[in-house]
C-alpha cells in the first residue's frame, strides 16, 4: 500500500448560514506526505480539518481518512490519528501527568508517556494543573496528547502558535522525526516559512476553495517567478509568502468586484 492515498477529499461542501465555509474542496494526501494548508482567517481551513477528523458533518461531498468515513467510523479513525486543534481545552484541575495517563489509557496502544513528557519539556510541570500552565506549555501538552497513540496520521492546526523560539524549533524537529517514521502529516499554518520548509505540498485556500495546490517551489515559480520585490524595493529571492500574498489578494479583489 505504499504511495497509497491516506486522505481523499472530493467536492467537500459545508455552509454556515450564508457563508460557504467549504465550497467544493478536493485533494488527496499520500502516505508519508507532509501536507500544508494555508490561507487567510475565515478561509475554511479549520472547518476542513474538523470535517476530516469527524467533528463536523459536511453538507456534501466525501472525505475519507485511512479509508474511513470520519463521521460514521469516528471511533476507529480516532484510534489511528492524532489531532491538535485550536479551541480545545482540558479540565482546569487536571495535572499534566494525569492528562497524559488518561489519554494513554483511552487507546488500545499507547506510547510511553514519560518519554513524551521529557520530549516536550514538561517533566518539571508534571504535577502542575492545566489552569496554571502558560499558553506555550498548554500547546506542548496538546502536541504530546496528539502523539500519545502513536498515530498514523497527525493533524496540527496552528502547531507553533504561542510557542517560544525553542519550542517552535522543537516542533519543527518533531515534524522531521514523524516524517522519517513515515507518519502522514496535515499542517494548517499562518507561518509561510514553516509551510515552505516543512511541507511536500501546500494548498492555498480562500473563501472555502483551494486556489492552488503544489510543491512550495512550483507555487512560487508559477505565481511570482524566481524573484520578488522586497519591502524596501530591492529584488530578492521569491518566497512562498510572496506567492500566497499575490494569490489571496487577487482572490480578494475578484471577490469584491463580484459583489
Amino acid at each position, binding site marked *: 500500500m505504499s504511495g497509497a492515498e491516506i486522505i481523499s477529499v472530493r467536492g467537500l461542501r459545508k455552509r454556515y448560514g450564508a457563508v460557504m465555509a467549504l465550497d467544493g474542496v478536493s485533494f488527496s494526501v499520500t502516505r508519508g506526505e507532509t501536507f500544508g494548508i494555508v490561507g487567510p482567517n475565515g478561509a475554511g481551513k479549520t472547518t476542513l480539518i474538523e470535517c476530516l*477528523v*469527524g*467533528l463536523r458533518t459536511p453538507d456534501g461531498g466525501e472525505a475519507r481518512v485511512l479509508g474511513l468515513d470520519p463521521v460514521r467510523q469516528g*471511533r*476507529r479513525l*480516532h*484510534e489511528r490519528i492524532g*489531532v491538535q*486543534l485550536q*479551541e*480545545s*481545552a*482540558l*479540565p482546569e*484541575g*487536571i495535572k499534566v501527568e*494525569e492528562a497524559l*495517563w*488518561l*489519554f494513554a*489509557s*483511552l*487507546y*488500545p496502544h499507547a506510547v510511553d508517556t514519560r518519554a513524551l513528557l521529557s520530549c516536550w519539556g514538561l517533566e518539571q510541570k508534571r504535577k502542575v494543573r492545566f489552569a496554571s500552565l502558560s499558553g506555550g506549555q498548554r500547546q506542548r501538552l496538546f502536541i504530546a*496528547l496528539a502523539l500519545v497513540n502513536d498515530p498514523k496520521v497527525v493533524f496540527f492546526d496552528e502547531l507553533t502558535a504561542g510557542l517560544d523560539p525553542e519550542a517552535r524549533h522543537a516542533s519543527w524537529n518533531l515534524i522531521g522525526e514523524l516524517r522519517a517514521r513515515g507518519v502522514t502529516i496535515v499542517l494548517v499554518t499562518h507561518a509561510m516559512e514553516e509551510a515552505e520548509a516543512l511541507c511536500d505540498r501546500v494548498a492555498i485556500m480562500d473563501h472555502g476553495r483551494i486556489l492552488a495546490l503544489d510543491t512550495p517551489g512550483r507555487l512560487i515559480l508559477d505565481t511570482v517567478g524566481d524573484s520578488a520585490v522586497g519591502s524596501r524595493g530591492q529584488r530578492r529571492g521569491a518566497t512562498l509568502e510572496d506567492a500566497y500574498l499575490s494569490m489571496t489578494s487577487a482572490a480578494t479583489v475578484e471577490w469584491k468586484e463580484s459583489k
Partner: protein
Amino acid sequence: MNAMVSLAWVDLKLSLRNVIGTFFTFVFPVLMILLFGAMYGNAPNASAGGPGAMDEAVPGYVVALVIGSAAFMGLPIEIVSRRQSGVLRRFRLTPLPAWAALVSLVVVNLVVCIGATAVLIGTGAAAWHTRLPSSLLLLVPAFLLCAGSQFAIGLLIASALRSTKAALAVGMALFYPMMFLSGGTIPIEYLPGSLRAMTPFLPMSWAVRLLNGVWRGSGWDARSTGVLALVMAVCSAGAALLARRE
C-alpha cells in the same frame, strides 16, 4: 471499558479537588446538621418513641443539600463549562464514544453523593444519635431514584444552556427555592398555606417524600415513585434530544 474507568477515576479526583463543589456536597450539610442540632436537639417527639427533629432532618438534607447541590449546581455547571471551554471537543477526538464524558460525570456525582450521605449519617449519629435508615434494601433504590430524577433535571439544564453563567443562574434559581420549599430543610408543616400549595410542583419535594418514608420505615411511597420516574424520563429524553440537535 478500561477507558471508561480511567476517565471516571480522573473525574472523581477532579471533583474532590474542586473546593466549592466539595464544600457544598460534603461540608455544608454537616454544618447544617451540627448547627440545627445544637438549636433544636433531637429529643423524641410528643408521641412516645417518635422521631426527633434531627432524625427527621437527615433524609431531607440528603435530598435537598447533598443531591440538590450536585444535581442543580455541580453537574450542569461542570458539563456546560467543559463544553464551553473545549474539553468535550478534545474528548471527542479520542476513541471514547460521545456520551462517555457525560456518563462519567453522572457516575462520579452519584459516587460523591453516596460518600457525602455516609458522612452526613455518620455525623448525625455521632453528634445527635440520629436514627439509621430502617431498611437498607429499600434505601438503595430510593436513593438512586431520588438522585437519578434530580440529576436528569441537571442534565436538561446542561444541554439547554451554552454558557457557564447561564447554567449557574438557572441552577441557583431552581436549587434555592426547592431547598427551602420542598420539605428537605424546613418541614412542610411549618410553611404557610400559600407556599405549601406549591410543593407538589417541585420535583424535589417528591424525592424528599420518598426518601423520608423509606428512612422512617413507613413504607415505599408509590405516588412519589411515579412522579420521580416521570421527571427522570421526560428530562433525560429532553436532554438527549437537545444534545442530538447539535
